[in-house]
């Protein structure tokens, strides 16, 4: 358990453990990144989209004649136009379908209704004002509980008479009977109701694309801000009928993804249709309101959970019932077998004998989604619930929340640990991480300070979160997206003069892949990371991969990179044997060279071997030094951490401020410590955001009330505390590098620490739970009800 393992390579080679400065930064700091809006093609035209003011309405007619007569306008596309080609609906990643453009009914406010193509973006923006759509409003269903009532309007009649309701699916995990029995036999059962509201990733770059169909070559170049280029290519081929070999998806630089750039949005399909129709490149860049109103949301889970306890604080069982609001279509980006993602990791860091989890999903008049918000597959919802519930349980049995966790943690010697909902945790040491976090923040002193402040009537709270993440989807026997198994890939070519190019199926959106993946090759082969070019995001050149989300890049593509490097190393060994005239069995690998065991002065470096691979390879051996690996992980990885947060509450206004926040993370072995810390800083900030500021609320008519950054409140530098980070290191036993993935841990772990701190600050008033975001007016209301404010 150290802060970081010592690097074994030189600073020049910069393998694992080196805080190498990022190779991608020179272009970004000069303003020379190439984001989607920077893509300009000859003869390119612009698309803009007419959107519905209503959350639910019949389209009686669309009159585009005035728009079509406006300067520069080339075409107006409606659902009826797409219907002729069967393109008015498209499949979602979750096996549902969603409208590309509606033919007769709009399902949410700001839904796409028609698209205008014009020579310039200003002309297109003018023309959408002149497309007249006549609507007849229909009853709006905003509340998922009401959606499931028998008399609720059926939102999706397209599913046929046998599904004449708004229930999408039911999913469960664990042993219901055993859990019921365990809870019945418990000394007490602690319940909690948690709502985890709808939020939006709101990457600073919105979504957009340029569809460029060349009618002569019959080829589509599709430039897009996507986290999963290959999946897009497959989906586009399936929907459009264009052979996959005639489609190239290119992603360029991506201005933040966080899960919001996994789905295929209607605007993408429309722009492709427009390019097919006009034979010209069509550009569509959504504005911020379109992004906040129509792109895939995250969360929106209503959870009821109960924890069984013995009087001594031992947890006996966990029972969870959840309602998921999916909007009008289930467009979650979850693996097929997991409609509620990995929500059943909800037993968390605790040794819980029995658990049962069930989730039902409902349609409402809201945009579709259910994607990540920097968190894989519903893990945030799970972690928030169990970490809030554990705090509440500790309070009920009169234990300190830290002590309660220590008592119920899975012990280090229990790993690999099989959970009652079916996961096999690879490795962990939860006690050490929590102890370290408590020590760093000075927990005992803070409790004393809190007691003193309480006596003076001041409000201060300390919150803990000890989370277990589940990342690295996934083992292909279990995980797929629309049927495509969730492996990932790496192709490595070592050039004659000793530099190399690594091509990957994943996609950086700021995680620094060009640096970290080069460092893996450097670690494994001794080629300096500066000489390893990393290329992603071009389906014509990269091997097929599932993309970057759910913290899967390091667990899956990182493993593929290690394995492909080892394949190269193995071939180099035979080259070395040939050059050194010895048996391959007599060679050993150290520091980037093969040397004869016992004769360290007889060696060949990887650069020499690379040259030989093209100039002096033995007869019968294939020339060249390249390999490809499609890595199928044997298991998921389970990063974890313990966070402690201190908040102060302004009694008069209900404002919460985070005074300190200590994050101890364990993501196994670390490739680049600087980048890992950066990921944690960002993840913590995206954990702070929905805890205190961000929410997408709807009024009773289905209007999105946070449609600009004036109302959807991203934290600025002033709201964001100076995060304090530390590490423990518990390698993954099954990952070739012992790494686990880290990008989302902090977003998962931070919200319950903050919420627990706020509830802790108010607990002496009898407050047992509050839902995030913990806005001033919500906190004030509680204080008011308790007679404090």
């Amino acid at each position, binding site marked *: 358990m150290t802060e970081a393992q010592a690097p074994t390579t030189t600073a020049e080679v910069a393998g694992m453990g080196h805080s190498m400065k990022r190779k991608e930064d020179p272009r970004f700091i000069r303003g020379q990144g190439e984001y989607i809006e920077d893509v300009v093609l000859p003869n390119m035209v612009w698309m803009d989209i007419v*959107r*519905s*003011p*209503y*959350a639910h309405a019949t389209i009686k007619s669309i009159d585009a004649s005035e728009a079509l007569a406006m300067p520069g306008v080339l075409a107006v596309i409606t659902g009826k136009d797409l219907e002729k080609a069967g393109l008015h609906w498209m499949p979602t990643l979750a096996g549902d379908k969603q409208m590309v453009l509606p033919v007769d009914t709009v399902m949410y*406010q*700001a839904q796409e209704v028609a698209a205008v193509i014009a020579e310039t973006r200003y002309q297109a923006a003018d023309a*959408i*004002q*002149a497309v*007249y*759509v*006549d*609507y007849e*409003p229909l009853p709006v269903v905003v509340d998922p509980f009401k959606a499931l009532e028998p008399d609720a309007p059926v939102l999706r009649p397209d599913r046929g008479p046998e599904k004449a309701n708004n229930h999408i699916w039911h999913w469960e995990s664990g042993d219901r009977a055993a859990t019921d029995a365990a809870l019945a036999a418990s000394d007490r059962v602690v319940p909690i109701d948690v709502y985890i509201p709808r939020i939006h990733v709101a990457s600073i770059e919105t979504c957009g694309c340029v569809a460029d169909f060349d009618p002569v070559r019959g080829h589509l170049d599709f430039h897009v801000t996507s986290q999963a280029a290959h999946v897009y290519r497959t989906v586009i081929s399936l929907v459009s009928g264009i052979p996959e070999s005639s489609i190239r998806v290119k992603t360029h630089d991506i201005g933040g993804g966080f899960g919001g750039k996994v789905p295929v949005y209607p605007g993408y399909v429309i722009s492709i249709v427009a390019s097919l129709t006009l034979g010209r490149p069509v550009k569509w860049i959504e504005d911020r*309101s379109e992004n906040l*109103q129509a792109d895939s949301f995250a969360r929106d889970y209503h959870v009821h959970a109960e924890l069984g306890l013995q009087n001594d604080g031992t947890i006996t069982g966990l029972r969870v019932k959840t309602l998921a609001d999916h909007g009008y279509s289930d467009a979650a980006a979850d693996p097929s077998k997991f409609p509620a993602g990995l929500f059943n990791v909800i037993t968390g860091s605790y040794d819980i004998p029995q658990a049962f989890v069930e989730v039902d999903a409902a349609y409402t008049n809201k945009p579709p989604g259910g994607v990540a918000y920097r968190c894989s597959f519903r893990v945030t919802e799970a972690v928030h619930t169990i970490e809030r519930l554990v705090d509440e349980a500790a309070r009920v049995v009169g234990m300190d929340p830290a002590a309660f966790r220590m008592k119920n943690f899975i012990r280090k010697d229990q790993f690999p640990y099989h959970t009652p909902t079916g996961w096999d945790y690879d490795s962990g040491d939860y006690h050490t991480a929590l102890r370290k976090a408590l020590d760093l923040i000075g927990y005992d002193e803070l409790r004393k300070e809190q007691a003193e402040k309480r006596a003076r009537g001041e409000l201060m709270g300390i919150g803990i979160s000890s989370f277990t993440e589940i990342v690295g989807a996934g083992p292909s026997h279990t995980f797929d997206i629309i049927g495509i198994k969730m492996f990932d890939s790496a192709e490595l070519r070592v050039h004659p003069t000793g530099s190399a190019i690594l091509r990957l199926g994943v996609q950086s959106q700021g995680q620094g892949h060009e640096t970290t993946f080069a460092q893996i090759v450097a670690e494994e082969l001794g080629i300096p990371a500066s000489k390893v070019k990393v290329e992603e995001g071009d389906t014509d050149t990269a091997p097929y991969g599932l993309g970057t989300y759910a913290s899967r890049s390091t667990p899956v593509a990182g493993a593929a990179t290690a394995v492909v490097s080892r394949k190269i190393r193995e071939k180099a060994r035979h080259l070395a044997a040939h050059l050194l005239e010895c048996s391959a069995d007599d060679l050993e690998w150290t520091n980037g060279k093969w040397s004869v065991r016992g004769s360290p002065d007889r060696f060949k470096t990887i650069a020499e071997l690379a040259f030989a691979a093209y100039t002096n390879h033995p007869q019968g051996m294939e020339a060249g030094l390249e390999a490809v690996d499609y890595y199928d992980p044997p298991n998921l990885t389970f990063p974890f951490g313990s966070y402690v947060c201190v908040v102060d509450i302004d009694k008069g206004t209900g404002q919460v401020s985070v005074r300190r926040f200590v994050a101890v993370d364990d993501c196994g072995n670390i490739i680049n410590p600087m980048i890992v810390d950066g990921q944690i800083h960002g993840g913590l900030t995206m954990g702070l955001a929905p805890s205190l500021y961000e929410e997408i609320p709807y*009024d009773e*008519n*289905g*209007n*999105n*009330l946070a*449609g*600009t950054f*004036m*109302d959807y409140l991203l934290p600025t530098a002033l709201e964001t505390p100076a995060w304090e980070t530390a590490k423990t290191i518990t390698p993954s036993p099954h990952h070739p590098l012992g790494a686990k993935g880290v990008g989302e841990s902090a977003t998962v772990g931070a919200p319950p620490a903050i919420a627990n701190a706020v509830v802790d600050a108010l607990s002496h008033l009898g407050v047992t739970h509050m839902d995030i975001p913990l806005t001033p007016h919500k906190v004030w209301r509680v204080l008011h009800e308790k007679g404090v404010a």
Partner: protein
Amino acid sequence: MQFQGTVEINAPRDRVWAFLMDPDRVGSCGPGVESIEVVDAEHFKARAKVGIGFISARFNVDMTIAERTEPERAVIKAHGQAPGSAVDATANMALSGPGEGPTTMDWSADVTISGTLASVGARMIEGTANKMIGQTFDCIRTKLEAGG
């Protein structure tokens, strides 16, 4: 949004009723109305520039006299659209008092605002809608009392 109020109109009840049933006259009291087109006895269309200060949007409004119980009660429905926004309203008006006046009009309005205006202008909409509706009924009173 629900609004309601009472207006005392110093005019005979049948004159008030006739005013309310006349699209041109009642329409002229609608906020920002620029033109009115009578389709038939129950339906008329209006074009209105609705706004607050220099912020405004031009709505095409379809109005329907949905119920009429002469000379006691009327329900008028309005459905207006502007680019990106829509307004739907149902106004109930109940007349009472001696036939020669003064006439008491109890009114209530249920207003739904959809789209950009609701999404972006939430912090200003309620007060503005309230004011516009109040102005409409004040206008009706004023015109009637002036002999209109």
